[in-house]
């Protein structure tokens, strides 16, 4: 696996805080001070009510597996078939990620299984949030 072959995100002014967060191993969401909606991806207003009174919230890093595919086509950044997943964060928002530290098989990847975030540094500026099954990294 050559992680440098992953598509490298280019932060914008509205998303820069998220990528600063992952660099220091924090998953940052935003929440609305008016309607209490917690959301992702980042933007400086609440997509539920339009309020600009929003603040950054540190997520717990806990999630469940909502859906996924196991991609069998060759990708230069991955070795063999790999999962592309949608996870549901404990705080509510969904995000795309890869499920790592477990076999990339339907048997190992059970929907609704609990996951925790882990971080993979791609470059000096970009660290990606990936997810592993709870307990996968326990000794």
């Amino acid at each position, binding site marked *: 696996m050559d992680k440098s072959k992953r598509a490298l*995100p280019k932060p*914008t002014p509205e998303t820069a805080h998220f990528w600063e967060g992952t660099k220091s191993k924090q998953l940052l969401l935003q929440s609305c001070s008016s309607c209490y909606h917690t959301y992702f991806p980042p933007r400086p207003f609440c997509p539920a009510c339009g309020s600009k009174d929003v603040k950054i919230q540190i997520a717990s890093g806990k999630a469940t597996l909502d859906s996924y595919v196991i991609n069998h086509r060759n990708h230069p950044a991955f070795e063999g078939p790999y999962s592309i997943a949608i996870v549901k964060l404990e705080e509510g928002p969904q995000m795309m990620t890869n499920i790592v530290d477990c076999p990339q098989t339907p048997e190992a990847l059970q929907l609704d299984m609990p996951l925790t975030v882990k971080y993979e540094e791609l470059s000096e500026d970009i660290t990606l949030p990936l997810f592993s099954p709870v307990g996968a990294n326990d000794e």
Partner: protein
Amino acid sequence: MNKGVAVVGASETTELGVIPNLSQQQLHADAALNALEDAGLNIKDIDGLATAGDRPTDLAYYLGITPKWVDGTAVGGCSFMLHVRHAVAAINSGHCETVLITHGESGRSGVGRGGFAAAPSSLAGQFEMPFGPMGPTSLFTLPVLRYMKDYGMTHEQLAMVAVIQREWASKNPRASQKEPITVEDVLNSKMIAYPFHLLECCLVTDGGGALILTKAEKAQDFPNKPVYILGTGESVETPMISQMQSLTSSRAFSVAGPEAMREAKISHDDVDHLMIYDAFAHLPIYGLEDLGFCERGEAPSFIEERNTAPGGRLPMNTNGGGLSYMHSGMYGMYAMQESVRQVRGVAPAQVPDVDVSLCLGVGGMFGASGCVVFSSEPSF
């Protein structure tokens, strides 16, 4: 609002499939010239132009049109359904009289075709592309395991969508894939992105299509049977499949479909023929449920019980669909061409007595939708 607009010219490109000797722009033009011939019109009769994939500027110049109305709405494969909706409004309000909608796509051969990569600074570029999706096969397919778990759909039921559409394609000489297939054939075909096998993914081919629309009151003056637009709908949801409100339903389908049916003043029982854009095998399942033809979770057995198959009570995707007929990348135009053929009574796999055909399109990865209700009569 709808004072009456009809399709008076419709055609696909002369060839479909692999067409390395024509550029994408010429595929538009080939379809447009065929549609003009079908309508008995000259290019100078066209005063409105809509297209997607290429800019209306490019096509107007290339075809020699001086439009006084243009629409370049580009929301993916259903853009042409939205063009129909916008053209109806434009014609009804007097912005123009005769609209040409063209599609051409060198999807397989890639002759004169631009790229589709998401910018690294776009939301999809930041929050989806780093995780390794490789186009529609590993994005559009992402929600289906959630559907399978929530509603108990089996792998065999998903495969059955492809099997039944191949039955329709076997009746169509222009279909790319005509050999009958079984559920076992589908499940034994190459794994592309679990749980999707090759035969549950659309084809990748070259082709084009064009429609010509004008006022319903003039529609009887053309050489071929007019097909009236009874109602239309449109919506968009999100550029990122990971952000769908529900992984088991398309919000854009749920807005566009019912709006088109409301405008057309039709109920489900009035629909004789159905097209649901099938880039992948799960789309007809989501579409049948979001349109309200089936309750949640019931579409897989509805298809398995042959309701949409030849001889069934709701014939669907009768050209063979994107899975077996053709799929250039933006398939919506071909779905509408089949609706027009069925209402005209000239389809290769003709369904008897089609008075109302409903055509539902998707754009992006469940990102957008357009819906058009076609009819043999000016009102229902």
